[in-house]
């Protein structure tokens, strides 16, 4: 029987040709439209309480909500808290996790596998099961509303994650480079500081961004450990509770803005393997 290399025309093929571009556009719209909304509403004129909605396409944008939120003091203190907590917890996470991840990456394969899986699994635990006990203890220690308390709580999530990513990074650095350094006269510490960490710098940077993002977005621990000094996500929640659409949208926009840059920078590194179980939905 003769067979040709031209694909056979199926019943669906012609409609598919027409549908495909629409399909792509709809996919993009699903993603982009909600984001458009949050920024659009933050610039929308007229005070929209939850009873009304601004027009879908505004023609006369206003900065009044941004000024109001900034001047009203609802934005700057939470912004500072969120920024500090995210940045400090990221730095601490690197300092604690990077050396440990190097050790893990040099363990024998079987043990390494178990440890790495263990790290992954702790990330999957529900925050409440950990957070309730942590919150009661921190309350006793006077750590509620403190930067330190929240930083420590965020490390619960970020340490296993950053360690997990960095184990993968360190595994790509050939051991004989470390051995060469040892023979060149470097101590283990010098080898780490002058050879291993510089080589892993891109991986450490990417992992840091992920961890920073996690802390910046984190809600549950922040809620459990806060009584009045809000972080930005808590501030969004408060705005939702209070009921002005523009206030809510403005704070949400502030919270989202840095993320657009971070995600743009990270997109090269977003591979399914790196996401498996790592990024919480």
């Amino acid at each position: 029987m003769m067979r040709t290399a031209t694909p056979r025309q199926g019943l669906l093929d012609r409609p598919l040709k027409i549908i495909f571009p629409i399909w792509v556009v709809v996919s993009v719209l699903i993603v982009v439209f909600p984001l458009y909304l949050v920024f659009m509403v933050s610039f929308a004129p007229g005070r929209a309480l939850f009873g009304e909605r601004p027009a879908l396409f505004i023609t006369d944008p206003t900065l009044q909500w941004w000024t109001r939120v900034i001047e009203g003091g609802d934005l700057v203190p939470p912004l500072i808290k969120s920024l500090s907590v995210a940045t400090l917890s990221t730095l601490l996470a690197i300092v604690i996790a990077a050396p440990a991840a190097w050790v893990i990456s040099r363990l024998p394969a079987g043990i390494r596998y178990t440890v790495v899986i263990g790290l992954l699994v702790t990330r999957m635990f529900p925050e409440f099961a950990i957070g309730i006990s942590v919150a009661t203890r921190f309350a006793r220690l006077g750590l509620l509303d403190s930067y330190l308390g929240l930083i420590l709580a965020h490390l619960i999530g970020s340490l296993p994650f950053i360690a997990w990513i960095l184990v993968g990074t360190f595994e790509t650095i050939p051991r004989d480079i470390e051995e060469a350094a040892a023979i060149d006269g470097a101590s283990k510490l010098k080898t780490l500081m002058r050879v291993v960490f510089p080589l892993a710098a891109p991986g450490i940077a990417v992992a840091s961004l992920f961890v920073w993002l996690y802390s910046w977005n984190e809600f549950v621990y922040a809620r459990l450990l806060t009584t009045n000094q809000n972080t930005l996500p808590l501030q969004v929640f408060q705005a939702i509770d209070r009921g002005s659409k523009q206030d809510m949208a403005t704070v949400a926009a502030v919270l989202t803005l840095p993320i657009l840059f971070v995600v743009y920078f990270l997109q090269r590194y977003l591979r399914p393997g790196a996401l498996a179980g790592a990024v919480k939905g």
Partner: protein
Amino acid sequence: MAVAEQAGRYRPSRAGLLAAWVRRHRFEIALITPLVAYVVLLTIAPIIDTFKISLTHPRTLAFPSGANYQANFGSATFREATVNTVIVAVLSLTLELAVGLAVALALHARFRGQGFVRTVMLVPLGVPTIVSGAIMLLIFARSGYMNSVFGGVANLISNIPGVDWEFRNLSWTTDGGIRTLATVAIADMWKVLPIVTLIFLAGLQSIPEDIYEAADVDGATKWQKFARITFPLLIPYITMALILRSIDAFRIFELALVLAGAIEPVLGTYIWDRYGPPTNDVFTASSASIVLFGIIMVFIILYLRFVATRAEVAR
């Protein structure tokens, strides 16, 4: 000219070996200790602690006691929350897998501007969950944009002579029922679409091009290629996405808090309600989080069985 003979046995004591090992690796031990200590003190110990609280009687403080579990399972709200959690999980998983697969198929094909579209598709990945809740509120609240779309459609229809349809604004988020749960599921779908899409894209990319060429030679249509090649080869990736997403789906909290509130509780919001004011009941809250923990453990075990292969971890 030495032909070596069999080596003599060499066998130091166990304790000696351990001491020597510790001495040789003290640098490594020093480096890993902080991480281990952290995980033990701030992850494992709190879970054990929560477990203990959950088994402590709220008034007599007797231990162990099943009182908190009894109280939870006896509570209509808790049962409702559990059922709702399952419903939301099923809804959102179905949506995520279907939309994720559709989007992945669209992105897998070659077209102009593909790189840009892929970057755009990743954005919700970084958007805070609470923001995604806020956005959905803009869309699905009584005064949300969903109603303006429906209102527009209703207007059009009511302009047709003979049709009389008066449109009433819906409040997806406050009416309760399946519609509210669906809103939570949609919000969750939007938030995790990039992850699911990426997993499926990886799956699609793992299928060698020449299989399709072979199918072309055999005269397969596009649909046949999808049904007979693409889909079966994607099944491991679907399993992976399903299990991973299940773990997260049961932990759903922020979205439910914002979109469903007290009307349709899920386990996350139930725990929060018990723990927070005015109840401040740490005992039932602990017991409910241990129940949640148990449910998630089931999926973690599934994950370990089906997903976490060595290659996966090694990337």
